[in-house]
């Protein structure tokens, strides 16, 4: 009995890893440049946005919640940040202060947006799906409105100054990768080795029990949304120097991608169990699929979505199948 449980666990651990390895092998076979430093760095750096957000999403989902608004929130925060920096530019001049101002804006806006979602969910007791569907619409509209239907662009000189935050790094490793790694490590530690992580799982598993054990259920839930908001802010700080602009097309469907990554990684959608490292694997699987499809052109680009969809399902089948077999 116990042996079975352990074996089962270890297969559900190996599952997503196997999926990832399969993708890596397929990629290398298709194109020798695939495992090249450039490509790997590109893929990791661009996974960072979704990745950072997905780490926060792992906590929200583990605690039995959901957040559909993250993509729009990212777009809105990016827009706000750009507006703020452009406005302050004449006064502050191109330099570190204005960039710091932008970063502070992103973090504060993220925190506020997360708290807002969280308060509506915990205080008014509305389904997270509805609250965040609503705020998704609201943020998406607001960014369109801020940009007057077009695109908000960061001042060009400022952009060149700020760009190293995406493209630069230390020892050849770019900042987004470093920040992503940091967020993952902190996330993993928090999930595993702090009371907060445990409380999230307990609440997702059975909030009544958690309440009876004097866990501050509302507070913990609120914190998961707030943390997610801040992480969306962090992701935006990396995103803005990359593209230097925000529009209504920014961050579209990021929420679905983040949730998918979380679930591919083995976190349970109904809550109660989550793992941050799994989410990382989920994120990598998703971005590698996109990358792989660009490596070759053996199918009509119209069918990319189909292949992507099939691989997502397969990655999870692999995981569950081996679980059932184990």
């Amino acid at each position, binding site marked *: *009995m*116990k042996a*079975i*449980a352990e074996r089962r666990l270890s297969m559900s651990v190996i599952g997503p890893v196997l999926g990832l390895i399969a993708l890596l092998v397929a990629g290398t076979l298709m194109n020798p440049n695939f495992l090249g430093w450039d490509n790997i760095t590109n893929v990791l750096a661009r996974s960072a946005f979704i990745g950072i957000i997905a780490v926060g999403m792992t906590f929200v989902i583990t605690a039995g919640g959901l957040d559909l608004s993250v993509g729009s929130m990212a777009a809105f925060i990016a827009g706000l940040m750009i507006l703020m920096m452009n406005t302050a530019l004449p006064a502050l001049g191109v330099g570190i202060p204005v960039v710091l101002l932008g970063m502070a804006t992103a973090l504060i806006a993220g925190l506020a947006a997360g708290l807002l979602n969280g308060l509506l969910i915990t205080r008014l007791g509305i389904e997270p799906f509805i609250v965040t569907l609503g705020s998704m619409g609201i943020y998406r509209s607001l960014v369109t409105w801020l940009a007057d239907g077009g695109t908000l662009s960061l001042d060009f000189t400022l952009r060149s100054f700020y760009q190293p935050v995406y493209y630069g790094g230390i020892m050849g490793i770019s900042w987004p990768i470093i920040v992503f790694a940091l967020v993952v490590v902190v996330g993993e*530690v928090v999930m595993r*080795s*702090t*009371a907060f992580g*445990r*409380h999230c*799982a*307990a609440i*997702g*598993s*059975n909030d*009544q*029990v*958690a*309440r*009876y*054990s*004097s*866990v501050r259920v509302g507070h913990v839930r609120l914190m998961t949304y707030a943390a997610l908001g801040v992480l969306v802010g962090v992701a935006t700080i990396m995103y803005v120097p990359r593209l230097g602009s925000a529009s209504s097309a920014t961050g579209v469907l990021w929420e679905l991608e983040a949730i998918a990554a979380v679930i591919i990684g083995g976190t*349970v959608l109904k809550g*109660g*169990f989550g793992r941050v490292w799994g989410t990382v694997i989920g994120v990598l699987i998703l971005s590698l699929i996109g990358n792989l499809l660009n490596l070759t052109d053996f199918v009509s680009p119209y069918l990319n979505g189909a292949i992507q969809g099939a691989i997502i399902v397969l990655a999870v089948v692999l995981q569950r199948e081996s679980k059932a077999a184990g």
Partner: protein
Amino acid sequence: MGVVVSQAALELRQVSRSFGPIEVLHDVDIALRPGRVHALIGENGAGKSTTMKILAGYQPPSSGDVLLDGQVAHLRTIAEAESHGISMIHQEFNLAEQLTVEQNIFLGRELKRGMFLDKATMRNKTRELLGRLDCPVSPDAVVSGLSNSDKQMVEIAKALLRDTRVLIMDEPTAVLTRSETAVLLRQVRALREAGTAILFTSHKLDEVCEIADDLTIMRDGRVVWSGAAADMDEHGMATTMVGREMSDLFPAKLGEKGDMALEIRNLNVPGYASDISLSLRQGEILGIAGLIGSGRTETFEGLCGLRPATGDIRIFGQKVRIDQPWQAQALGMCYLTEDRKTRGLLLEKGMRENLTLQTLERFVERGRIHRKGEEAALDKAIADFDIRGHRESLIKNLSGGNQQKLLFAKTLLAEPRIVIIDEPTRGIDIGTKQQMYEFIRQLARAGQAIVVISSEMQEVIGLADRVIVMRQGRIMGELQDEEASEDAIVRLAMGVGGNTPAREMTQ
């Protein structure tokens, strides 16, 4: 024990409690004193759990006072009650299923070193607590995989962790065997020595006699008797509780065996049981005994298609193959689960929906469910099984015993020709128990074939025509009615060679 008049640690005075317009507690008085075990007994739905919840701060009283050390206290939150050293073990499990044992025990009061959890210490502490309870589960085991008795031990460990002045235990022994009960009672004695005030409920009156110093008996939400436990014997308790004279608990084993109903050859339930062969005739009650974890539940779940199993099964002479539970039911065989809360009943639904869930097709007329028929079935179930509680209430608001009665009614509504009843009287009061035994015997007389799995040896012996004893997933032996004694069962259950003074016999 003489009457020690010490200051009550926790006390209810003239407490009433209503849910909506219905008052379920009327002017209850009860006082828990340090260093004494207070037993609270009463029929199902008498208000024991509600009283306990009020004492522990889970629910406020509608009127009346809660006194802490003689002072009126308003325990607004559980945390507040806890800070006064009051803790409670619930009748229903109160564990997060997806978390591990250690995570559950320390939930809400994790030990930290700096910002991080001190897992090593927590794990050791868990091991130590479980060790005190003779419970061998690993601190890292996930709770959803534990047996009921282990879950109960985890609950108890969770309560022991808190430094308690007042410990309130709502039917902690309902899912325990005698040996486990003995371990628990040992802990209770130790706490009593240390000056803890303890409130305890059980439907097993022998336990009450053994451990209680003070006794309160409730009926229909009122205290009907209160005093020193020594002033009351088992018979008196039963009579006062039920409000009528109690006769023999078990019905006479009359009845004739009919045709062969069920034959099992070499049933294997991978991981739990192997080489199970047995047969059962119509009109017969077969008892299955064994220690907890001996694989009785799994064997019969395997038989009924609830888990993967292989083997040769014949029902009324027909060779059958059962892969899904509904196939078993179609063949006239039903299994009544031991786990009413997670497998037996839909807690968020009402009595009617639960009662007819298993046999809905029968209530369908021209494609639609016939509501009147359902109501009639509910009327009958309420009458037959003496289910108390409001008709419209959700299952989760019924008292534990009444839930069990409804589960019983639900399964029997399917009118199975073969019925397997796992732990039939868990949490049922003694008066109703008698009724249920009578009922089971009547079913047998009417020609049904019945299997009773029970951890209460008295029950197996008193009820069954024949007893099979299991150990580690195998049948160890079969005892005919006259051979079936506690001693014989225990010998088989512990392994044939062992004629050691079994722990099961500690009482």
